[in-house]
């Protein structure tokens, strides 16, 4: 089969600049022209950065490609080039189908216009024909569930209704290639599920989707392939599971993964300084301050005491974003982990397997001591993040309102005899 989209060595250079303020006024242009005529003519004198560099890939009809990367990695620049909003600085893109582009939902929506007027305007902006919009109008409105308010100005809509209507128009876009940027970050959970369903239909009908998102669960359940962009370069293209793993280990907040504890601001007042450094390790022995739902986390603490030798005890309390303790554990209370060998210096590691934590940022209190007493306590010593993952394999997750824990379960059922 032949690719519907070919990207060769795509690059985009932006001028950023020291001369920012004066850059876009005639006076600025004139002063520069007087000071250094040649440079001004060549447009020099500003700093340049490559937002995208040497990116190449193909997409087949029916492919759903998830695009991963940190903020500022170049994901949106890639979509903007593919959708013709901006020109590449070098490279080449060949498109064998029409491109529909959703960098945001509701582009061109205007508060003062009614739902009906906005549907037509937004549809036309997205490149739909008036006749096509009219044909699908009832479906669009039904999908958005705003039948009663379709002739009301959208400024009277709730934010949910507004987003549903905006997405609904886009969902009926009939281009062969669809570029989607983070639209699923909006709307309530039920609506997000419908959007995911709609995107599955889109790819099932043989169309191609490029999908930028931070929602790993959505990417993993929807995408056939993943493209990972870092600092403007394509760092990986392949099976979502593998690429997501690489992305998480490479990018997710490496700053907090390893740290010194010598002078931690949150150390309890009367603590002795015993814990010296901390290292967080995810599955696969990668140092990471972010793990995926259901993944493992190891917390390694190096200690040193100048006064005495320890039979070390390391405990922790994991707290969620609101400071609520989710659980705590230490090797004083768990049989089999009492270490007899005394030492003034050493490394002790807690291994947490298959953490059933919901996506959120969690903080860690560290308690270090011996079998009788905690000598060194650091509250909120570090934080780690749990990232969305498709733990049930169907793109669905419990709602956030269910609490900080998800728990694997099974069901039995015995219907009453008829």
């Amino acid at each position, binding site marked *: *089969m032949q690719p519907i989209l070919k990207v060769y060595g795509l690059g985009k250079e932006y001028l950023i600049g020291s001369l920012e303020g004066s850059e876009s006024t005639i006076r600025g242009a004139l002063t520069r022209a007087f000071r250094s005529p040649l440079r001004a003519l060549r447009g020099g004198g500003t700093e340049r950065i490559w937002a995208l560099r040497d990116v190449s890939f193909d997409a087949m009809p029916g492919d759903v490609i998830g695009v991963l990367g940190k903020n500022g990695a170049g994901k949106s620049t890639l979509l903007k080039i593919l*959708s013709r909003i901006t*020109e*590449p600085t070098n490279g080449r893109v060949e*498109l064998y189908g029409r491109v529909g582009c959703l960098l945001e939902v509701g*582009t061109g929506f205007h508060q003062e216009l009614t739902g009906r007027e906005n549907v037509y305007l937004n549809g036309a902006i997205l490149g739909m024909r008036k006749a096509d919009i009219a044909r699908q109008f009832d479906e669009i409105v039904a999908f958005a569930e705003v039948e009663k308010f379709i002739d009301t100005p959208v400024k009277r809509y709730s934010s949910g209704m507004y987003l549903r209507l905006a997405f609904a128009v886009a969902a009926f876009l009939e281009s062969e290639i669809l570029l989607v940027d983070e639209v699923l970050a909006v709307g309530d959970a039920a609506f997000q599920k419908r959007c995911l369903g709609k995107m599955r239909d889109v790819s*099932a009908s043989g169309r191609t989707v490029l999908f930028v998102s931070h929602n790993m669960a959505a990417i993993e359940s929807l995408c056939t392939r993943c493209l990972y962009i870092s600092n403007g370069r394509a760092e990986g293209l392949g099976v979502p599971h593998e690429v997501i793993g690489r992305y998480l280990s490479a990018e997710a907040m490496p700053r907090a993964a390893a740290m010194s504890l010598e002078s931690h601001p949150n150390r309890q007042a009367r603590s002795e300084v015993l814990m010296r450094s901390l290292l967080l390790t995810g599955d696969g022995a990668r140092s990471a301050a972010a793990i995926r739902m259901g993944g493992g986390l190891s917390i390694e603490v190096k200690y040193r005491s100048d006064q005495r030798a320890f039979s070390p005890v390391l405990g922790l309390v994991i707290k969620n974003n609101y400071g609520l303790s989710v659980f705590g554990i230490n090797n004083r209370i768990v049989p089999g982990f009492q270490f007899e060998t005394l030492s003034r210096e050493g490394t002790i590691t807690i291994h947490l397997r298959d953490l059933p934590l919901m996506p959120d940022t969690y903080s860690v209190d560290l308690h270090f001591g011996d079998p009788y007493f905690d000598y060194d306590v650091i509250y909120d010593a570090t934080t780690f993040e749990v990232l969305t993952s498709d733990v049930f394999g169907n793109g669905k997750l419990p709602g956030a309102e269910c609490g900080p824990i998800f728990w694997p379960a099974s069901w039995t059922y015995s219907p009453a005899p008829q």
Partner: protein
Amino acid sequence: MAELVTLPDRPILVLQPGKGWASLDLPAVWEHRELLYFLTLRDIKLRYKQTSLGVIWAIIQPLFPMIVFTLFFGRLAKMPSDGVPYAIFAYAGLLPWTYFANAVGNSAASVVGSSSLVTKVYFPRMIIPGAAVLAALVDFVIAFGLLAVLMAWYRIPIHSTLVMLPLLIVLETTLALGVGMFFSALTVKYRDVRHALPFLLQIWMFVTPIIFPSSIVPPRWRLILALNPLMGVVENFRAALFGQPFHWKELAFSTAMALLLLVFAAYSFRRMERTFADSI
């Protein structure tokens, strides 16, 4: 399923860095003509939303200056007005002028004002200033209604020269589109235009025979005045209304200038358009 998709042998679109002058890509503009319609409609609907006078503003805009000019120039300064009452003489000049000034002003601001569209979705950018000009044309048509009333009031007979009016309106639209489109692209890079344009338009108004007849201008100055392409429009607009002889030379010059300006503006626009999303 996926196998059903048949792809064209050649890419329907190739994206690569552009150099120098770009083609106008008018087929793409034609393909998006419905968008032009919807954007114009939006402009018109929004302009008078939540105003209590609504579209009456379209009439007030040329009407109030007419009253002021009639008092000061017509009554006090006894400005000659080529044999028609000064009030209607002024209105017949202010009407095309208001259209031109609004069309140029709105379209010059239109691209920057649509930054949320420009950075989020692609369509031929020319549509944006185009819609702004068309929306101003609708105001013009409404304000023209008052002109008809005034003509009846002053018992000005209907002349066969009226058939020239649609042609003159097309000519003025061409001129406004050229000027407006050029400034709309320039505003993206140089926001100074926003501040400079009102001055330019003010001066432009005074070098155009709006509140005075060109007949009071000495012949040797007339030639310089005729370099203003709007002069051919306004002069002939009045001639058509009041059944006076047409100023053919000025008309020919205006037409040539309007076309030249439009072509120049369109190519400049296409050239500057490349960096719109990056610099807006």
